[in-house]
């Protein structure tokens, strides 16, 4: 390690060759130990498998199986059915989450807005609730017998909604995601809006723009990079959907233990005691995440040049 003192002496010379490494070092070490190493370990795990040696309660032993786990995972209809369900969930969740986040961000950014701070905090607050807690809470509100919504409907003489059919459960889970996700995305978009110079608005107003036109023709185009970013976060978040359906599954027969791909990985790894198959499925999911992120970037790159994209 070089001490700061030596740096002071060399102030007018070329940068010490170690200096850049000192700056990026912590990030590199963290990503090597926390991301790269487990990733490599999972790849190695995914190439191995279990064979029982000996008789009835023979020992399970690790063997090298090559790509057999990948073949099994790729031909597992349950994994792809899970992807289908995940996709449908994303189709419901992402546009509504981003649409609401955008709407709230634009509303908060209008001049003469009342209660701005209070609204901002109350919209953001659900994001601070961990997914599992939020799911338990909503699960309670969905369950027939304890659901306040069903009680309300009954008191108003309306048909009671069933939140846990094979179809409605998508909307029930999407609702939890939206409730928890709007605030976070709104803060990103709002922050991006605050970064837009006010001279643009002044010029627009001189030209006779009203607030609606300003929002549509100035704010929205300038927000595109931030929208791409939040879109990417939402996409990755959707692929990683796990805690909501996992928490709700014991409450209903509408959710299987392999409802989304991540649940299947968990089931294979921990319930079926097959770390190796789980690792292979996880690698497939990672691959799909990376590919879809790159594709998203590639599609949106030309429209949102520069900035964050």
């Amino acid at each position, binding site marked *: 390690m070089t001490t700061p003192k030596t740096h002071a002496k060399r102030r007018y010379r070329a940068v010490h060759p170690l200096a850049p490494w000192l700056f990026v070092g912590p990030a590199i070490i963290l990503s090597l130990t926390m991301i790269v190493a487990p990733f490599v370990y999972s790849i190695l795990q995914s190439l191995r498998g279990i064979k029982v040696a000996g008789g009835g*309660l*023979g020992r399970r032993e690790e063997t090298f199986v090559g790509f057999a786990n990948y073949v099994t995972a790729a031909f597992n209809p349950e994994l792809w059915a899970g992807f289908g369900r995940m996709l449908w969930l994303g189709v419901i969740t992402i546009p509504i989450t981003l649409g609401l986040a955008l709407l709230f961000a634009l509303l908060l950014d209008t001049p003469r807005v009342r209660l701005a701070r209070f609204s901002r905090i109350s919209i953001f607050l659900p994001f601070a609730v961990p997914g599992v807690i939020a799911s338990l809470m909503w699960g309670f509100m969905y369950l027939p*017998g304890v659901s306040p919504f069903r009680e309300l409907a009954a008191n108003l003489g309306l048909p009671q909604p069933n939140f846990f*059919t094979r179809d409605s459960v998508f909307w029930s889970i999407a609702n939890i995601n939206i409730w928890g996700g709007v605030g976070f995305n709104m803060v990103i978009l709002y922050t991006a809006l605050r970064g837009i110079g006010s001279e643009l608005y002044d010029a627009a107003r001189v030209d006779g723009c009203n607030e609606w036109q300003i929002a549509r023709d100035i704010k929205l185009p300038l927000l595109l990079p931030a929208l791409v970013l939040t879109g990417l976060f939402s996409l990755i978040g959707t692929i990683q959907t796990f805690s909501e359906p996992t928490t709700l599954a014991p*409450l209903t*027969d509408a959710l299987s*233990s392999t409802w989304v791909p991540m649940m299947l990985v968990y089931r294979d790894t921990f319930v*079926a*005691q097959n770390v190796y198959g789980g690792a292979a499925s996880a690698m497939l999911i990672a691959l799909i995440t990376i590919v879809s992120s790159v594709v998203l970037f590639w599609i949106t790159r030309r429209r949102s040049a520069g900035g964050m994209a």
Partner: protein
Amino acid sequence: MTLPTGVRAARNLLAASFGAVLLATPALSQDKVELTYWNWAPHIDEVIAIWNEQNPDIHVTVSRAAGANEIVQKLSAAHTAGNPPDVTNVTYGDLPALIVNGLVADITPEMAPLKDQIAPVAWNLVTFDGTTWATPQGTSPMYFFYRKDLLAELNIEPPKTWEEFGAAAKAVRAADPTKYLTQFSTGDAGTMAALTHQVGAKWWSLEGDQWTVDINGPEAKKVASFWQDLVTSDAVSGMQAFSPEWGAAIANGSIIGIISAVWAPPLIQNLAPDTLGDWAAIPLPRWSEGVGAQYSGGVTGGSATAVSALTKHPEEAKKFAIWITNNEEALAAYVRLMNIWPANLEARKLPQLQEAPAFIPDEKNFYQLAGEIDAATPTVSWGPNRGIAFDAYVNAMGEAVQNKSSFADVLDVVQKVTFDDMKNQGYNVVEAAH
């Protein structure tokens, strides 16, 4: 309850975190052995306090590191990392998975002298092909618990056979549409397994080194179809047991009865404390004809104590494991705090097991009945992939209820998934011929 002082608590914490380090440096614990013990039960530390008082040279530190349903994952991880607990509690259903993964020690010689003292149904759950892998804590005699006040109000006799049970379920609905006799939970594979044990189904059995999987026999399918009729006709509720909804239904009397085991009274008390004295407990209904009419119930839960294959103190660990499952004082505390029904036959003579449980004071013969039900419970084994079988059941049964398709077919699915998985893993396995 003896609360450890701050210093002792801190030391226990240190011992738990650095158990491996401490064990590796005998200089620190010259003439004192430190054992770590995993158990998820709420009052277990009070039982451990008795041991530590009596055995100053073998100190046990209890940790609630893992719940009952995650013990296999966490033990496997700790074992791989090289620092598993010396002794652990494990459900009977999870034990085979621990054995095949090489996590637990063979305790056959230490257990042999105890064999005559232990209920056969429990002995069979920890012994495979002559080797004993854990020491049984309790057994699970099954009862039908019901609100006698509500049944009397509706003028319905408590059912003695399953036929009467089905009729009673329908009669409850006819008399009061806000109430159900009981619920059928798609998520409860354990209860379905137990109900099929009653007709002689043995989901797994091991002869020599050959496994037989027998989940979808005609008798078992009859049980599934019986419940399908009740579910599709809305004669039983479809809510999931142990959900908040179910808890509320038990509390307000819209669920009248529960199929459960000997440890249910305190659980019901937690949910519905003001129904003290309103509940009755009778043996499960029986099938009036055919195979299995002789069996009073199935095997549904319970746990055993196992010693880690990696423990550095096998002698002390085995001594402690046997103490906590067979010592009179330990079991007295266990019964008082956790309402178990001991597997050790001697312990069943404990004074507190001669009277009714506090929550059902009228059931004077409750524990006497437990012994009788136990004796009439078939001996079954769980298999090494019980987790997969139960998972397949829950998914397929959820599907069947949602799609209103056949429950008997669900057992076919579970049979196929379980058998195929064992075959793939390389077990010597066959399917039962029907």
